[in-house]
């Protein structure tokens, strides 16, 4: 297919994306965008430096390969370079969404589905609303000079409704969404959306300012997912550790990070936003146990980081799209469920905070969660809604403060947005987990 230059490592990733966005302002259609985009990313490695090119001119990829090769310094024996040796050479074709391809569902069916749900927003308190349906199906092909040849597809779809709610002087913007893999899964969700809309309205109407302080915090599966991603997930991305002795010592495998019941997993095989059957270097998706029984047992790798740290590949080299090179990213990252019923967890909290939904989170030395809906927990009951700016904790300490995990468990996919890492945003990732009780976090 391509003539790969000698004594260089070369790979080519071609992405063909079909996307739909149907947007409404109140009940009026505002946009119906159906796009088919194709682009490619080419990499050449000479053992010292990488040369990358992204292009929309996919008919002239050989020229791009040759152009990059002319900048590189070919070396005999490059196949023995540890990074080159580490690349997998899978040959596979997994087109599992051809039958249920979201791009083949007629646009009018997508409009009808949306319009059915929009009627739920005709209620007192919602001043105006913006909603959208989105889907995307991507077919990725990957070829390398080592012989890898992989083609696979992935798809997601979802609905999001954002509403501006006003009750006198109490005003807020709240939202509800649901992601799925197949279009049919988005049907019949009236009860789910109705419940969430009712919760949002009640929250805005009755929320009181929080009394800032340190509280035991119960996180919902959504909040647990963001907490896991921000407080620990980024720390497991090994590109932050390459060539860094302090980090290598701090995050040495076998180190105790949390209590015995804490298990954290990253799994590229989970369908949804974080589905990575093959990563963007052609490595097969894997399930990586990052924390097992409270101890650090793994981390996430690209081929480069795995080779440099002399660890196994994990299939976590991901690019946000064809314009970027793959870097180490999470796929679907979650805390495994515990064995305590949720009711029992709540009953044991005297004075705490329940984080139900999340606006955003971040994770440096201090991780943050900005709640969308939060509530007091008083004497074993979830009670008054509270306005909270931000919940914070120290990334080095907080995992050890995870005291309890529920038997209830949920994995989710955001609709809109995603994970950001420097210039690459938004990358779709999966997240979730059980209800999680953290002994203490700062609530502002």
């Amino acid at each position, binding site marked *: 297919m391509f003539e790969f230059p000698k004594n260089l490592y070369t790979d080519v990733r071609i992405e063909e994306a079909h996307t739909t966005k149907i947007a409404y302002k109140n009940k009026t259609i505002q946009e119906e965008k159906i796009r088919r985009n194709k682009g490619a990313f080419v990499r050449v490695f000479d053992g010292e430096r990488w040369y990358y*090119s992204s292009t929309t001119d996919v008919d002239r990829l050989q020229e791009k390969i040759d152009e990059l090769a002319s900048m590189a310094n070919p070396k005999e024996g490059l196949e023995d370079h540890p990074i080159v040796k580490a690349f997998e050479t899978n040959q596979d074709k997994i087109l599992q969404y051809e039958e249920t391809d979201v791009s083949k569902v007629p646009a009018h069916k997508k409009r009808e589905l949306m319009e059915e749900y929009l009627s739920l927003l005709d209620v007192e308190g919602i001043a105006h609303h913006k909603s959208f349906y989105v889907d995307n199906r991507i077919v990725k092909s990957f070829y390398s000079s080592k012989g890898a040849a992989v083609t696979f597809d992935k798809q997601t779809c979802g609905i999001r409704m954002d509403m501006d709610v006003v009750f006198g002087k109490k005003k807020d913007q709240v939202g509800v969404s649901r992601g799925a893999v197949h279009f049919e899964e988005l049907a019949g969700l009236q009860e789910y959306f109705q419940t969430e809309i009712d919760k949002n309205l009640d929250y805005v109407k009755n929320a009181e300012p929080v009394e800032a302080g340190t509280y035991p915090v119960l996180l919902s599966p959504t909040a647990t997912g963001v907490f896991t991603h921000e407080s620990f997930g980024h720390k497991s991305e090994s590109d932050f550790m390459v060539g860094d002795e302090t980090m290598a010592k701090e995050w040495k495998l076998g180190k105790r990070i949390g209590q015995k019941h804490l298990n954290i997993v990253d799994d590229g095989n989970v369908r949804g936003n974080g589905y990575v059957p093959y990563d963007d270097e052609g490595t097969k998706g894997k399930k990586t146990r990052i924390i097992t029984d409270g101890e650090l047992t793994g981390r996430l790798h690209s081929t480069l980081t795995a080779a440099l740290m002399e660890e196994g590949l994990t299939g976590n080299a991901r690019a946000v799209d064809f314009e970027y090179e793959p870097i180490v990213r999470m796929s679907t990252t979650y805390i495994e469920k515990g064995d305590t019923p949720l009711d029992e967890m709540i009953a044991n909290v005297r004075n705490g905070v329940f984080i139900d939904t999340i606006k955003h989170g971040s994770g440096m030395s201090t991780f943050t969660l900005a709640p969308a809906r939060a509530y007091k927990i008083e004497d074993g009951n979830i009670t008054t809604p509270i306005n909270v700016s931000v919940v914070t904790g120290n990334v080095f300490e907080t995992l050890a403060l995870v005291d309890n995990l529920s038997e209830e468990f949920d994995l989710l996919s955001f609709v809109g947005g995603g994970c950001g890492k420097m210039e690459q945003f938004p990358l779709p990732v999966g997240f979730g987990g059980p209800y999680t009780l953290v002994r203490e976090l700062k609530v502002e």
Partner: protein
Amino acid sequence: MKKETVSIRTKETTARIRNTAVEAVRTKDIVKKAVRVYDEGKLGIGGSIGDVEESVWEKQAKDNLEAGIEYPYPLETGTDHRDYNANPMDAQTMLKHTERILKTLRDEFPEFTFSESVTIRETTTTMRNSEGLDLSYHDGRFELGFILKEKKSANLFDGFVAFEGRKFDPERFWAFNRKYLAAYNNPVDFPKGDKLPVFTLGGPETKRFLMRALNGENYATNSSLFSGKIGERLFHEKLTLEQNRNPKETHQAFFDNEGVRNENDRVALIENGVLKKPFTDKETAERYNLPHTGGASGAYDGVPSLRTAPLRFKTDSEDIKKTLKGEPAILVVVSSGGDFTAEGTYAAPVQLAFLFDGENILGKLDEFTMRSSLFAMYGEDYIGTFKSDELYLGDDVQLQGFYMDIKR
């Protein structure tokens, strides 16, 4: 049937940096184009990435008319071609600068590692239509963005070294960054007091919150914190907040997504502390009888809509050092994850901050939390918006000062 085309061409070269060395060089040449057709009050759009024949998108746009998207507004006219950087830096010069900077960092600051990227980016944006509109904006930028890590630290990263501008002056870069990096190695105590002068480079959460409050639709439907307050004084009398499309200051096209230009490329939304108007696109202005500000946003191939606007404070103060009159201040460099509650209460963790005398960065402070509220920050506790020439971080960088509650 009327026709309009939008195109964005981006050419860039990036040096990817890992552990204070160039790891990779990346080139990009991406074209994004869209065709809009207008017929009987409806709008259809076709487009995609790649240099495809215009007729392909035109057909797509005509098919898209069936979706029934209403757009009964007049199209813009007029010609305006602007080039803000006719001779942008080339790739070889960028790579030479990069290698020199990295060598200096390795030689003089071995206690840190620096990673991420240096980029030169050239962008050409055009909008043309069958009614005579012909707009084009060309610009070129040099962007240096390093995450900095102290070798002794177990954090993912500990700070940033950054610069964004049309020209790059290595002497000024080093005059500032040598002092800035030296301050990392000089831990200092907090000044006395719980309410201190804090200077920021403009937090994204503040702009996001103001954008929501100044959105014309939110304003008109009573869902803005500012609803019903046009003509009222909201903030400090010297504060002016503009919808600013002056590329010299905001580095983006001088027209909105409907091709609308403003006189002097700006519109005051809050002037001398008084709310003048929210930002609006054509639809919002007509529907709610508000002044039209040319505030339409959207993707190159999207329907113009009212979501974000380029908000920028007017520089209203000079000489931070003189203003502080010897009072020690805090310069916030990294504050990630903070936010406002619906009623405007603000709290944010500060991951990296320095002691600051208004001119010089004196030493590094421990992490802390800052608290305030929108109306206090821009009201009684507002110090001012300053142009910062000392901090060589880019073209037209502003520093904004407030008195904030500090919790160590």
